[in-house]
């Protein structure tokens, strides 16, 4: 039974202007109110938005936070990322199961509490962590779980679970969360003190083309990982034909091991909005959208408050800061749990109320993006850089960093190290220097750029973090000497299987086959020929996949095959008798022996 009336759905749809393009907001609202988007709700939404019901069903079935089946009024999403596993999430998981008396994927008999796993929720530096509805719980232990469950059973209100609040804005009324910023190293660009509004004022004193030129002179490149020159992106978007243009801030950081945007969104959102406004002015947009991952919903009140403050101060709205003809405002678009939406065209699809499927390119977003309008999608950190460049000048920006990669980069560092957290390093820092600073000099391996990046070993520690060497969107995960790198690679493949949109064959099927291949080797059933098979398969997935997810999803396998070859080789051996090592006759006969109540005579154990 759905807990929502058709009238309530009508109201929700009406509040979104009965606009089919706002489907994400509609289904998010229905899910929040009813704990599901049932078949009846789907039917009602379709009627209200004048679309086919299967379109709504398609969207609901795509996002992890949306569900046709009834969930509890409280949903516990325990993060089972690799780093959480390294920090003992399995014991925490068992404690949740024991205390609640249910397994993962189930809801308590009274229908109140649902227990689920979630991939990286952006809290690797304070793992194990969980989302309880929109509230974040960090540094979980079995004792903490007992307390949480006890409190939930008593009051059923996740907001009442928090005792010690985090630092900075986390402690503010708007956020009220236990999350710690974890800012360990402040650099000159993102976390330094800055002159609010100066960047925007300077920008508005220039022509849009001059602003773009300033960004080009600063040689700012995208901080999300791909590293596309921001000035060029803006130039294309500005030059593209279209009356309406958009700038979208990609705040969907979902790469496992990444949480640096969390710190920005908490402490530097104003700077980010300033950068967006500058971008809007530069490309000729009057609207901006922040696409915020559902896992960071606890920050929405703060973001909305800052936006309202900016509107009140005429930093947004009509004739921004008195600049005639420059109208600009920003809205926040919530995601609903899909890593793929960090891919810019998938993000645009999601904003349009569609499944988070990436789009075909060309046309590129700069030509035809959100709703067909020229659109620039920029990373949270990139937009902060924009604000600072306009404040301090392009020359200042290039003072730090390396030759090809000016300025600084925020790194989210976690795993087997003494001091996990957010670090602002100048580009060009050596991995070895970084390891020393974070207290991880005995690292066996370092994941640079998240699972879609590279897993490197000691031989590569003198390499540098920059666009021309080890490029990264910011995730750095450290693995100590005792970790099994094949297991780690297999975990990350599981992540990509879960998060593939399924649009193209190589990513949808190939990742499953890669994972199965790794599991075979980990089970001690692998043969030398399997390594070549994995390599070839990985290359097919990499070469033929349609978007960045599939083009990089084989990296955990390919980079460990390259950098940890001896681990693989020690695990595989040739089966000399022509038998397939994977075939397990006793397992295959188990069912029949039970049903027939007799043991195999042919295959006696």
């Amino acid at each position: 039974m759905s807990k929502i009336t058709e009238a309530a759905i009508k109201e929700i749809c009406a509040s979104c202007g009965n606009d089919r393009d706002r489907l994400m907001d509609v289904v998010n609202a229905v899910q929040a109110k009813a704990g599901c988007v049932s078949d009846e709700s789907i039917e009602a939404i379709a009627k209200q938005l004048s679309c086919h019901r299967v379109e709504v069903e398609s969207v609901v079935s795509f996002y992890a936070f949306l569900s046709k089946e009834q969930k509890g009024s409280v949903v516990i999403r325990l993060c089972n990322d690799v780093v959480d596993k390294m920090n003992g999430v399995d014991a925490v998981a068992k404690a949740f199961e024991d205390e609640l008396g249910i397994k993962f994927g189930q809801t308590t008999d009274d229908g109140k509490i649902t227990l689920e796993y979630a991939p990286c929720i952006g809290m690797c530096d304070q793992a194990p962590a969980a989302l309880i509805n929109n509230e974040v719980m960090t540094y979980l232990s079995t004792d903490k779980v007992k307390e949480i469950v006890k409190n939930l059973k008593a009051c059923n209100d996740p907001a009442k679970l928090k005792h010690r609040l985090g630092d900075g804005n986390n402690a503010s009324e708007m956020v009220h969360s236990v999350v710690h910023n974890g800012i360990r190293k402040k650099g000159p660009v993102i976390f330094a003190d800055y002159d609010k509004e100066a960047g925007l004022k300077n920008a508005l004193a220039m022509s849009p083309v001059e602003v773009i030129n300033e960004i080009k002179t600063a040689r700012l490149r995208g901080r999300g990982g791909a590293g596309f020159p921001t000035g060029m992106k803006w130039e294309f978007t500005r030059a593209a034909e279209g009356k309406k243009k958009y700038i979208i801030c990609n705040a969907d950081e979902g790469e496992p091991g990444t949480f640096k945007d969390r710190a920005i969104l908490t402490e530097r959102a104003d700077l980010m909005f300033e950068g967006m406004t500058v971008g809007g002015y530069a490309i000729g947009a009057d609207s901006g959208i922040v696409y915020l991952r559902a896992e960071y919903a606890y920050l929405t009140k703060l973001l909305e408050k800052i936006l309202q403050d900016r509107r009140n101060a005429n930093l947004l709205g009509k004739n921004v800061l008195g600049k005639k003809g420059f109208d600009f405002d920003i809205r926040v678009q919530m995601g609903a749990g899909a890593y793929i939406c960090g891919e810019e065209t998938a993000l645009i699809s999601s904003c349009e109320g569609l499944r988070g499927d990436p789009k075909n390119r060309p046309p590129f977003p700069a030509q035809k993006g959100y709703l067909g309008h020229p659109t620039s999608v920029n990373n949270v950190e990139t937009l902060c850089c924009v604000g600072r460049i306009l404040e301090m000048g392009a020359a200042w920006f290039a003072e730090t960093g390396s030759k090809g990669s000016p300025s600084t980069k925020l790194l989210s560092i976690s795993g087997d190290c003494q001091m996990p957290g957010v670090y602002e390093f100048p580009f060009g820092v050596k991995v070895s220097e970084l390891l020393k600073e974070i207290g991880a000099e005995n690292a066996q391996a370092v994941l640079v750029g998240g699972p879609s990046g590279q897993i490197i070993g000691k031989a590569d520690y003198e390499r540098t973090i920059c666009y021309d060497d080890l490029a990264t969107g910011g995730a750095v995960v450290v693995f100590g000497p005792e970790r099994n790198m094949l297991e780690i690679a297999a975990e990350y493949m599981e992540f990509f299987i879960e998060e593939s949109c399924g649009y193209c064959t190589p990513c949808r099927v190939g990742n499953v086959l890669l994972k199965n291949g790794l599991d075979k080797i980990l089970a001690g059933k692998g043969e030398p020929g399997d390594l070549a098979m994995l390599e070839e398969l990985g290359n097919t997935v990499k070469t033929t996949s349609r978007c960045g997810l599939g083009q990089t999803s084989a990296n955990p396998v390919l980079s460990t095959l390259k950098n940890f070859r001896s681990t693989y080789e020690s695990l595989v051996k040739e089966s000399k008798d022509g038998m397939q090592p994977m075939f397990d006759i006793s397992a295959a006969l188990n069912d029949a022996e039970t049903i027939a109540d007799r043991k195999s005579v042919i295959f006696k154990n």
Partner: protein
Amino acid sequence: MAKPKVATTSLAGCFGCHMSLLDIDDRILKLVELVDFDKSPIDDIKEFTGQCAIGLVEGGCANEENVRVLQDFRKHCDILISVGDCATMGGLPALRNTITLEECLNEAYLDGPTVYNPDGVIPNDKEIPLCLDRVYPCNEVVKIDYNLPGCPPSADTLWEALVALLTDKPVSLPYELIKYD
């Protein structure tokens, strides 16, 4: 010089592939000139008499006896060929692979719309080989050297492949002979 030996068997198959082998018509006389048959339903030799050059396996593995025979073939045959779709991908018997063995037996002996079984007994004599949890394509159980697709592979497909192997030539089937039906 002794003629190379060939062995054949049908596991969870329908003997259609063996029929197809007989379909090579008068070329069977040539084949007998080229090879001796060892364990095979064609000459009714029940167990291997020695090492064979080529083993032809029809059908996948649905029960323990299939596994035993297939493993025996692998041990006794230098080259092992999976003949037909059942050997290669499980074929029609593998239609049961999406349900549990229990459901499958219940449907076959108790619940199926055409079942007449007044005693409601699922056959369970100790002589009946135990079924596997699902039907396994041959190459999941042992290593297979060549696959000859088809349901069944045509007589020409079998002939071409055998002649190539017996004359030390690479097995490369022309377009018309690679068929999955």
